[in-house]
């Protein structure tokens, strides 16, 4: 659906070119929710804005749904942008227009529908985002979460094929974030809309994304399905994001574990295996004793997962390890 071929971006700063995005290849599939995570200045915002050419690429090609976006003339770009919705961290609603008028704006700009068709579309969009009773309010009268719902309705007005989300939940409290993310997941499912979102919170990625790319210094340092990247991070930047989101102090943990006897291992369960009574049965079979040092059981999008750090003592430890491997559990021996 979205394809980057050797796309790069440099900015002139005080006469010198500063690279915001190194030559990058990227493929985003139709209907997926693709997350880009990175700290500020990592280049994720630039990458997102290159897709609808709010930023002009310095080189390379960007192909969206078969259209070479980089080759479009101004009129073609306008047509293309009407097929690519966008929502923003600070919502960017027009303060002088009502909720309904904000949602109608992209339709009026496109000029393809009659006034009555626009009114009907706006009504349907208001219902979808649950703001029907706020149609005639002004943005200043709404809460942050409601403003972002207006932003989403406005972005969906022209029935786009892709939705670009620029830190869409970063200005919201955790509860509102959850409900906005749920709405995004819903639209993705029901409209088969391709969503690209950027964030600096791993939790946002974990809740809605199918795949994720981790950015650092204008480079994608790691990408893959969320479960793989989240549970088995390879790059230091990715590890930091995961640790941050789990609020784990890795160094402190290592010191604590130094006093624990036996083999220390980390087990990662995914899907149904998360709920299987594995530990008890392995302990009975092999005579090992286990103590749980750290653990987390949660979901990545719709998939349950668990990650436990265990210390094994006594009995046949090697046999226990073999049992875990046989049960399709990902095993890392830490000590």
């Amino acid at each position, binding site marked *: 659906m979205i394809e980057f071929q050797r796309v790069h971006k440099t900015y002139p700063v005080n006469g010198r070119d500063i690279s915001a995005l190194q030559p990058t290849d990227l493929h985003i599939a139709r209907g997926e929710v693709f997350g880009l995570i990175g700290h500020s200045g990592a280049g994720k915002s630039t990458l997102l804005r290159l897709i*609808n050419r*709010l930023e002009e690429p310095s080189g390379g090609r960007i192909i969206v749904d078969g259209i070479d976006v980089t080759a479009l003339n101004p009129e073609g*770009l*306008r*047509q*293309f*942008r*009407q097929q*690519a919705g*966008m929502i*923003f961290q*600070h*919502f*960017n*609603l*027009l*303060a*002088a*227009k009502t909720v309904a008028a904000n949602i109608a*704006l*992209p339709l*009026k*700009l*496109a000029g393809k529908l009659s006034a009555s068709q626009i009114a009907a579309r706006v009504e349907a969009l208001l219902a979808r985002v649950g703001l029907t009773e706020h149609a005639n309010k*002004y*943005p*200043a009268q709404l809460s942050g979460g409601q403003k972002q719902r207006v932003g989403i309705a*406005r972005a969906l007005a*022209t029935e786009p094929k892709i939705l*670009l989300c620029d830190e869409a939940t970063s200005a919201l409290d955790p509860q509102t974030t959850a409900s906005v993310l749920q709405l995004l997941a819903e639209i993705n499912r029901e409209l088969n809309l391709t969503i690209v979102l950027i964030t600096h919170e791993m939790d946002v990625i974990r809740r809605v994304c199918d795949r994720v790319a981790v950015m650092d210094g204008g480079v994608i340092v790691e990408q893959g399905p969320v479960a793989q990247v989240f549970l088995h991070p390879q790059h230091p930047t990715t590890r930091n994001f995961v640790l941050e989101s789990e609020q784990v102090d890795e160094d402190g943990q290592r010191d604590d574990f130094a006093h624990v006897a036996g083999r220390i291992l980390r087990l990662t369960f995914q899907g149904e295996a998360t709920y299987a009574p594995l530990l008890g049965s392995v302990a009975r079979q092999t005579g090992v004793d286990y103590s749980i040092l750290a653990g987390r059981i949660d979901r990545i999008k719709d998939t349950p997962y668990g990650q436990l750090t265990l210390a094994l003592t006594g009995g046949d430890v090697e046999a226990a390890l073999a049992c875990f491997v046989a049960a399709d559990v990902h095993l890392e021996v830490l000590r």
Partner: protein
Amino acid sequence: MEALLASLLHPLLPNVDWTEIGYASLDTLSMLGGSLLFTLLLGLPLGVLLFLSGPRQLFAQPALYGLLSLLANVLRSVPFVILLILMIPLTVLLTGTSLGVAGAIPPLVVGATPFFARLVETALREVDRGIIEATQAMGASTWQIITRALLPEALPGILAAITVTAITLVSYTAMSGLIGGGGLGDLAVRYGYQRYQPDVMAVTVVLLLVLVQILQNTGDKLVVHFSRK
């Protein structure tokens, strides 16, 4: 009623000719109305152009911005009294006369337009850049961005700019008496100052004050009415 009022006021304001005051008030209002109309017609596009061509804006054009900016600054730095005299040949060319209401309007417009354009530029800069970006992302043309997003969003600021400009124009009209522009200011200078008739001076000052109050209050009400923040 009028006669009664006149007879009551006569001992207090012996030199005031109410008919003349009436004509002078009408002159002031027509100078204000005429010059404000042309100032808005010229100043609004100029302000939009100043904004768009400015640094890091939609159509950043350093050369054009530099030129417009210089022109606006030069015109604003010429004292209005001097501008009145400098403008006489051009005024005659435009209106056929350098006298009266018609002769006063061109210098008033030239004096107020750069001032108003700068205020419009400032009001447009107050619009959140994110709103321009969002409108661009919707596929709006530049014309649509200006008319559908920028100007409506800046409306309260532009209304405040119109108010300030109108009040500035009222004080400019008083100076146009120098070139025979007519109006209340002219009356104040000719009767109040040159003929030592302080009562005429007082009446014109009170009338100008009332006019400015009305303009300011109306402007403020409109700004509040169109502010949604």
